[in-house]
């Protein structure tokens, strides 16, 4: 399957990441971890009336996280994620949504296995928090536009692995779900107003 073309926003994130790699790190009891990531959003649900059935499809997602992690078990994280085309269907012959996205900006608490236990191996963590879930969708005639800024809940987990003093990788799986807002017409009971899973892999830059 061909890889999706890298969006310009993602190219900028990668370039900033490469620049940060060039800066030497400073060791401390708490480390700043900057993690640009790329992955997929999947198993999406929405009750918003967007007409295309795209929310449930797997979509490219990317973003970046900045975390302050202690050597112990606690850390905090600010994370930005962006999923272009979130609501769009696959078939251009039947598509009515021209442009759409879901963008998230959240603050999370990270609970990780202390470094004294994991040492140089993978360091598992759980993450959870609140933030902004921004949904946008524009259809051909502007019949059912979606412009929603919602409070979102994030829960998930993953693992961090450092491959050098200043660089590593992060594997992350999290569920993002809107907890405010109103359902659109034709909403089905039991379906989330807006939710999706996100699996991502990121490069960690440690300071």
């Amino acid at each position, binding site marked *: 399957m061909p890889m999706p073309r890298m969006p310009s926003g993602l190219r900028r994130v990668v370039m900033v990441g490469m620049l940060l790699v060039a800066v030497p790190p400073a060791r401390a009891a708490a480390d700043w971890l900057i993690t640009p990531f790329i992955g997929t959003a999947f198993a999406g649900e929405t009750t918003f*009336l967007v007409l295309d059935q795209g929310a449930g499809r797997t979509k490219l997602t990317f973003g970046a996280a900045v975390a302050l992690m202690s050597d112990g078990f606690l850390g905090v994280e600010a994370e930005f994620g962006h999923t272009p085309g979130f609501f769009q269907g696959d078939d251009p012959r039947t598509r009515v949504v021209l442009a759409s996205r879901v963008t998230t900006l959240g603050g999370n608490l990270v609970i990780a296995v202390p470094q004294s236990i994991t040492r140089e191996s993978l360091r598992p963590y759980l993450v959870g928090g609140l933030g902004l879930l921004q949904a946008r969708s524009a259809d051909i005639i502007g019949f059912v536009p979606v412009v929603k800024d919602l409070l979102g809940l994030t829960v998930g987990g993953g693992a961090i692995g450092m491959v050098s003093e200043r660089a590593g990788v992060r594997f992350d799986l999290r569920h993002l779900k809107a907890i405010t807002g109103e359902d659109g017409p034709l909403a089905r009971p*039991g379906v989330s107003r807006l939710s999706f899973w996100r699996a991502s892999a990121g490069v960690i830059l440690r300071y």
Partner: protein
Amino acid sequence: MRTARTAIATLLALGLLGQAGSAQSLTISLFERYLEAIRVQAGIPAISAAIVQNGQVWDSGFGHKDLEASVRATATTPYPILDLSQTLASTLLLQRCLDAGRLALSDRVRQWLAEYPESEATIGHLLTHTRPSGGFRYDPARYAALSGVVEQCTSDPYAQVLTEEVFDRLGMVDSVPSHDLSEHGALYPSEVRERYAAILGRLAVPYRVDANRRAVRAEYQPRRVDASTGIVSSARDLARFDAALSVGVLASRTALEAAWNTDGARPTGLGWFVQPYNGERLVWHFGLAEGAYSSLVLKVPGRGLTLILLANSDGLSAPYNLANGDVTASLFARLFLRLFVA
């Protein structure tokens, strides 16, 4: 930046739709695309649709009239049209009784049906779903009494009047006056009964759609034909009826003006719902058999426009409380108005 985005979006839309030959075909293409998207979103197995614009008819089918047998819906797929039957009854009453001078709207119903329970109710009250004490309440069972009035006025069975004056006259070849052929079987010769049976054999299968949009084959108890319900027809046949109605073939202009107007105190004309919309008058009706079928007809007389939708689930009508008299509650109506009127 926003202007540029809008321009790009418009170009993309035009590109997606291909080289449309005219603004009208582009509008129809957009309508088809949106209608199909809403149908899928609402979980409706099949919709048959027609649009009549100044006598020109576009029609099509969407989805499957029989999911298990994978039979696609077309514009000629027959459905029970349910309460849309009221618009045909109103037309017959206007044509055969009012225009012929045999009846007045102010006549008490008891003048024509001695056993009718409401002593003060007039023909006009029944046609407008109103009471002598004032106030509107949509009541199909009460409206059904008008078939008896038509029979008294014409001295013929209602189903026969309907067949002769509407179906046969307009060549409505997918229409049957009664879902239950045994009801009026004696009225028709055997070849006509066989034709009606063949039409009923092609009837769209009714489905109940659950919360997860799963369509489950439903039981539907056929309704006896009267002024309120019972007719089986197709979108194409109803487009024929609409075109004939609009040019004054079926009733006089004066009678239609009365049917398609309201005094503002109620949302109904004579056998039709009527409401204002952006400087236009909307004339419409809906049909609903919960968990089985639904229907909608929406006319914009000022634009010579009519939308006809028939479905084999209740999704055209059930979510929108249309008996309250506001068709703009319907997503399907709003789409049509947005594309063709707004």
